[in-house]
Every structure is written in structure tokens, then in C-alpha cells.
């Protein structure tokens, strides 16, 4: 059932009558003017045209779409969160206490010496980490111009490095889907500021040569950056700091299950080793000797990457998630995530060319992966990430997460396998059962209509 835009239901133009000087104010404003019952029905209807993790499995690779514990929403709604960020330290001890605890907890989980919670998203964390690394090199009088990124890395790695002013050097994978160590040897130089890696990588494969890789980069005077997108496979098992990484980001909305919200807010704290800690954004939080909490500016801070704290409620929810699980629960998260991925892969008919994989795997569709995805929609499941990483033909990058039951994994495998049986021609006719049929992306881009103003009277 089609839902009109609110502007198509009831718009109203009001003449703006303000106590402000006329020359500052607009004449009129035209906006939808629904009564509350209509607002409720409109957005209820829109929600019914949307698929969340409580609608079914969302096995998007590297996205870690796990169940978001409901109680964290209640913790986030607690009145103690209603504190203005510009209160004096002494007037917000509860906030600073939580920030301090979460800094320390994430540092422990990452094997890092210090953590900033400020970056408001994973990509913002990457940018922050690179800026911190750059400030470190600069402080050493070390002018380096390149960041090395494996071809299978997330697109944000390339974009964040570029945004920070670095040239990006792309590193090929070897035949096992991992970093080609020889190629890395060849790529590193006095210009190497950073190597960015995710581990396990986007194929779900652990870079077993990580210590050798770290030595190569460190020997060249470079630093190692850990992309935390795949951290869900390491809890209780391994820590980036122990592998030689100097900087890392955490995706709280992945590993620590804060809701993705249809594309944010997330939060991308970064952890660093002791050498880089003085360069972290300001403010940091610490506990004083008398048990109070205070903010302070790290000695060589790069300043800010967000006007305030980023997305506070994401921090609160992640903190609650960690406390709920504890050591035992967190290790179980990763064990089950890896078991689930391996079990699912064992049940599907598509080939999975690389292994042994951890919490995610990349299958190869024998048809257009985009068509496969659309056909899966008709089975009531969300498809995996498609056509990426490109190292696998018609890639189906699949991460079921630990919160799927065996039954839902079996259902998901059945959906994969039913689609695998379909003719290629039939695939292009899908989806048939969704709110919208297949959408014309090309014309959307060719003739951009980006607001109700652009729709006119159609």
C-alpha cells in the first residue's frame, strides 16, 4: 500500500508574523500540517515499509547486524542522561564517570593504552586515527605522504586517508585472500605513514602474518591502523594492540550492538598506544586521586573532531551492553558469531572460495549477485552485501552474527539455496513481494528529484 508524502496529505502555508525586524524574516513558510493522529499513522505506515533486525536476519558482511538489546534504550532514556555538555566538570560527575570507565574498558578490549570516545562514526574514527598518526609523525619531524590500504579494505579507509591529505597506495591480496607480504615489503618506504588493516579481513580471514606485517611497517617507521569493523570475531580471543597495531577504531554500533538506526548515529572511538596518546582529541577524561572525574586536554592534542561528545546515547548503550555481557558473555559473542558463520556456510550451495573464515565469509554467486539479492528479498530475508569485495566473483559477503538461532540460519540457508536453483532470467524479475518492485536507480541519478519541491504536481 502506497503512502503519500505528508506534503501531499495536508500542507499549509503560514504567513510569518514575527516580533523580529521585517527585513530579517521570511514572508511565509510551507510545510506539512498533519494533526498528531495523522503523524502517528504516517510514520507507523512508513515503519511497516521497512526491514529491521526484528523483522528478520540481516546478514550484511562487515556490518554486524546483531540484535540490539531493548533494555539499552531504557538506560538511554534515564533522566541522568539529561545533562548539558557545557556544565562544569563538578556538575556532571555521572557523565564523566561513565566516559572514564568506557575509555578504560575499550582500551582493555583493544589492548590499547588510551581511548578517545569522541568520533561520531566509524569513518570519523578512521579520520581521527589518521590525524593522530599524522600529528605523531609531524611531532617527530617525520614528513610522510602515503597510507597503504589493501584492495579488500572498506571504502572508508581510502576516503579517510585521502581526506587527511595522504596519497593512498593500494596493496594487492595474495592467492589466499590475505596481504601479500612481498608486495607490502615493496610498498613500504620512508613515505609510509600508516598501513590500514582489518583483521580478520573482509573475507573473514585472519592475517596470520600480522606480526611480520607489523615488523615490516614499524621497521620502515610507519604505524599500523586497525579498522575495527570486524572486531566482533575477536572478543576474548585476541587484541589488536597485542598484534602490533598502534591505532584502532571501534564501531560501537557493530561490535557492541547499538542500533544502526537506518544509517546512524554510530560512534567510532579510537584506541592508541602510549606514544600516540598525547595526540588524542580533547577533552579526555580521567579519575583523580580523590576519586573525582575531570576532563583534560592531552598535551599535543589534535583538537576536536566533533563539537561535543559525538553521540552520547550510543556510548551509554554500548557501555550497558559490555556490562551486561562481561568477559564470559563477550567471548561467547565471538565464539557464537564464528560458529554461526561457519555453520551457515556449510549449509549453502554457493561456493565459498576462501577460508578458514571467522565471523563472515564471501560466497561466489554463479549469477549476478545483485539479482541474487533481489530474489532473496522475496524469501523474506535481507540479502548479504553484494559484489564486494571484488576479489570474489559476484561476491555475497555474509555475516550472520551470533544472535541468529540455528533455525533462522537454516531458514537463511534455505533462502540462499532456493535462489541458487532459480534461472538467471527469473532472477531479473525479482523482487515480486516487496513494498516496491525493483527500483530504477539509473533514472534516479539521471534526473535527481531530492525533495517534495522537485516532484511538483506529479
Amino acid at each position, binding site marked *: 500500500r502506497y503512502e503519500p508524502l505528508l506534503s501531499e496529505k495536508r500542507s*499549509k502555508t503560514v504567513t510569518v508574523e514575527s516580533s523580529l525586524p521585517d527585513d530579517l524574516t521570511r514572508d511565509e513558510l510551507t510545510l506539512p500540517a498533519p494533526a498528531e493522529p495523522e503523524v502517528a499513522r504516517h510514520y507507523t505506515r512508513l515503519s511497516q515499509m521497512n526491514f529491521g533486525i526484528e523483522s528478520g536476519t540481516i546478514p550484511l558482511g562487515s556490518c554486524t547486524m546483531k540484535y540490539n538489546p531493548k533494555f539499552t534504550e531504557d538506560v538511554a532514556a*534515564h533522566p541522568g542522561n539529561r545533562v548539558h555538555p557545557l556544565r562544569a566538570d563538578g556538575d556532571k560527575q*555521572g557523565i564523566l564517570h561513565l566516559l572514564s570507565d568506557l575509555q578504560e574498558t575499550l582500551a582493555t578490549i583493544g589492548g590499547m593504552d588510551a581511548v578517545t570516545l569522541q568520533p561520531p562514526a566509524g569513518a570519523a574514527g578512521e579520520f581521527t586515527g589518521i590525524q593522530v598518526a599524522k600529528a605523531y609523525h609531524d611531532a617527530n619531524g617525520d614528513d610522510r605522504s602515503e597510507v597503504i590500504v589493501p584492495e579488500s579494505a572498506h571504502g572508508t579507509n581510502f*576516503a579517510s586517508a585521502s581526506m587527511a591529505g595522504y596519497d593512498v597506495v593500494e596493496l594487492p591480496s595474495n592467492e589466499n585472500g590475505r596481504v601479500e607480504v612481498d608486495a607490502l615489503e615493496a610498498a613500504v618506504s620512508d613515505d609510509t605513514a600508516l598501513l590500514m588493516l582489518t583483521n580478520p579481513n573482509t573475507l573473514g580471514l585472519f592475517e596470520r602474518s600480522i606480526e611480520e606485517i607489523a615488523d615490516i611497517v614499524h621497521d620502515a617507521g610507519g604505524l599500523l591502523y586497525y579498522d575495527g569493523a570486524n572486531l566482533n570475531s575477536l572478543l*576474548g580471543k585476541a587484541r589488536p594492540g597485542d598484534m602490533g597495531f598502534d591505532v584502532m577504531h571501534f564501531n560501537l554500533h557493530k561490535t557492541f550492538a547499538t542500533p544502526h538506526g537506518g544509517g546512524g548515529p554510530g560512534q567510532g572511538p579510537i584506541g592508541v598506544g602510549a606514544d600516540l596518546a598525547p595526540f588524542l582529541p580533547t577533552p579526555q577524561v580521567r579519575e583523580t586521586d580523590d576519586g573525582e572525574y575531570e576532563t583534560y586536554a592531552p598535551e599535543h592534542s589534535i583538537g576536536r573532531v566533533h563539537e561535543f561528545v559525538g553521540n552520547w546515547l550510543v556510548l551509554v548503550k554500548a557501555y550497558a551492553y559490555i556490562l551486561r555481557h562481561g568477559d564470559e558473555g563477550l567471548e561467547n559473542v565471538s565464539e557464537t558469531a564464528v560458529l554461526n558463520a561457519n555453520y551457515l556456510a556449510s549449509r549453502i550451495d554457493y561456493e565459498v572460495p576462501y577460508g578458514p573464515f571467522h565471523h563472515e565469509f564471501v560466497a561466489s554467486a554463479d549469477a549476478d549477485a545483485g539479482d541474487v539479492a533481489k530474489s532473496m528479498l522475496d524469501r523474506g530475508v535481507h540479502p548479504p552485501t553484494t559484489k564486494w569485495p571484488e576479489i570474489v566473483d559476484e561476491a555475497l559477503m555474509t555475516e550472520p552474527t551470533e544472535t541468529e538461532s540455528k533455525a533462522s540460519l537454516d531458514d537463511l540457508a534455505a533462502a540462499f539455496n532456493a535462489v541458487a536453483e532459480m534461472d538467471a532470467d527469473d532472477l531479473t524479475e525479482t523482487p515480486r513481494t516487496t513494498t516496491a518492485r525493483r527500483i530504477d536507480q539509473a533514472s534516479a541519478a539521471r534526473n*535527481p528529484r531530492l525533495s517534495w519541491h522537485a516532484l511538483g504536481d*506529479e
Partner: protein
Amino acid sequence: MPYATHSDSERSAMLDAVGVSDPDALFDIPESVRFDGDYGIDTHSERETRAAVEGILDESPDMTEFLGGGHYDHYVPSVVDHLSLRSEFLTSYTQYQPEITQGFLQALFEFQSLVVELTGLGVANCSVYDRATALGEAALLADRVRASSGETVLVPDDLPDRMRSVLDNYTDGPGIGVDTYPTSEGTVDVDALAERIDDEVSLLYAATPNRRGVLESDLDAVGDLAADHDALFCVGSDAVALSVLEPPESYGADVVVGDAGVLGLPTTYGMGLGLFACREDFLRQVPGRLVGASEDDAGNRAYTLTLQTREQHIRRERATSNICTNQAWLALRVAIHAAWLGPDGLTELAEECVAGIREACDRIDALDGFSAPVHDGPHFREALIDTDEPAAAVVERCREAGVAVRAVEDGGEERLAVCVTDTNRENVDALVDALAAEREVSAV
């Protein structure tokens, strides 16, 4: 474990299927980098966890706040919470499969439309992190489209420090310079700006309301100066103020950035929702996500993320921004809040932001030893106040009365900064009493 429960028999069956007896055997991690310690975190029940976290949060006192400075509180109606918490919205992913995410796409389209209506500009993205990063993105946009003419961003000397710091990080990579131009009497000094601006400037920024809470009165002239020097003119504002202010497009704005999160956000220690709009000319240089209208195979209107070739997951190091996860759920909340207000409610709220601070200033100005507001001109939500006493001492004594105000440096003076909105207007008595009480105390 709480959310990952296989029964024993299911777990056995799964282990059998993958051919190991213990999930640990699936971890292909060299022993040398295995973690054999522990984090030292106990497991808690749901009830214990709530009690623990809420207990920590309760360590902050209740206070009556008159703080602002870039973080503003308006009443968010209950429908916003209830609707946005529906799991189909809250727990969904970015809309890479538009056929099953039409609902969120339409909501984001409604958000973009709201921003287009408020700014008058043709293109709005569906959110960046906050107003500071929005300004950073604007600087990078200008660098892409005006790099030939100049590489300096020009901002007023009252740009808040926190925004400036973020801007410095954003402009660091491409080597864009950031420089300031003077303000005087609380607003842009147009003559001084005319002296300062040159063809090296790629982006000229001005905000209304500005850091002092004053609504700028001569942005036409500022826009003209930008145009004269082929610089982009970037206006900073927010979604409530723009409902009554002249749309920036009408006085030459090429980009509008600012705070969309003055609507719809949960009242907390801080979230952000950056507003970003620009002229259609720059469509293919816009950072972040865009939702467009299209049709599906059945010929029905349908929405989709569009122009994705600008983005990091396609364009990688040549993307218009590294942004991926943005603030979509908050944009949804703004769309709901704005719909609930309607144009009448939204403009009434804006008017309350004008009247509230004016009334508060009148009352404070009537107190001995206080002068409010410091600057002439219409104010919006905020104003600076002069005091005979050291501002820090006033702040400290307000604090003892449970009232939070700030001291700021302005024009070489320590001044009080006060913010009044619909949610604290009824408490202005407490503020006035706290200020007046101090006078009595100091008079003794």
C-alpha cells in the same frame, strides 16, 4: 549468553556440521597473538546492568540549566520517541536494498524536503554529524569547486572554539587555510570584511544567530562580498531559526550548514545532527547520503539512495567525503518533530526563542550590577550579559543555587552567557533570583 543462545543440542548439531568439537577451534589465530588474559568485567543480569549504569548517571546533580553554546534543548513530543523507537526504523541498516526500506527512505526524503524549504537551496543531504563537521564538509566542498580561485576559508572572529577546532582538522589534509574576519558590536563588521576578503578565499562563512545569540542584519552585503570574490558563501543557522528567518538562498547563500538537531533529538549529554544544503550546481560534489525519488518496475513512485558514485564505498579515495554511517535515525526524528509542529508550531517555537531571551534580558538588566544584553539587535535563544562582579564568581554562586550558566570570553571581557528556550523559560525566576541573591550577598 543473553542474546546468543543455542540449546546444547543445537550447538552440538552445528559443531558437527562444521566438523569441530569446540568453537575455539574455528579461530585461525596464531598462538603468539592469542589473548590469554581477561578483561576483568563481570557479567550482570539485565536488572543489575540497568541499576549499575543508572546509578553512575545519577551521580550528576539535578540543575536548572541556562546553557547553550551550540547545544540547545527544545521540548520533543512523545510521538517522536514512540515512533522512532519502532524497531523497523531503529534497528534497520542503511538503505542499500530500497525495495524493503521504502519507509526510511521516504522519511529521509521528507527530512531533505524540510531542509530545502528552510534554506531555499535546491539540494539537502540526509545528514552529517553536527554543525561543526558540516562546516568542515562545506570547506572541503568549496575546495573542490573553487580550488582554482583560492584555498582559504574565512570565518568570523567569534566562531566558537569547538567549531574552529573541528574545522582545523577538516582543512588540515588538503592544506586549506583558515583565517578570520572581524566582528564589532556583536555582528559581522562588513567594512572590515570588505578589507579582509580577497580572491584567495574559497569559502566565506557567517552564522545567524551568531555565537553571541545575535541575528545578523546585513548578510546581503556579506553575500555580495563573497560573490565579488568568487568565494562560496556559507551561512550557518539552525532548523528552528530558519523557520522565521529569510531563507539564506535569497541573500546569496551557496551552502547552508548548521544544526538540524535543535528539533527531534533526545535530551542528552550530546548528540548531533548536521544540516547541509547547497545549490543544485554542486549536486555531484555534495558529501554524504542523498535520497531521490524514482519509480519501480510497476511504475509506482519509489525512493532510493542516489548519486552513490560520490560516496566512499564506490569512489574510495576520490569520494566527496569519507562519511558512511551518518545520523539517519536523528533525521527521522527531526522529520517527525517538524511534522508534529507543522508550520504554525515551528514558527511559534522560533518566536518563543526570540521572546524568551528578550524577557530574560529585560529582567536581568533591571538588576543592579547587570547589563543585558551586551549587544544591540534582535537575539535568538542566547545573549551575553555584563556583570560588575567577576563572571566566574557569579557562575559559581549560581551553581550553588542549582542554576547552571556559563562565563565566556568576549571582546576581551569575561561575560555571562545565558540561553532561554521553551524548556527553561518558566525557570527564569530561578536565574534572576540567583543573580539578585548574589548582589545581596556581595552587598553585605
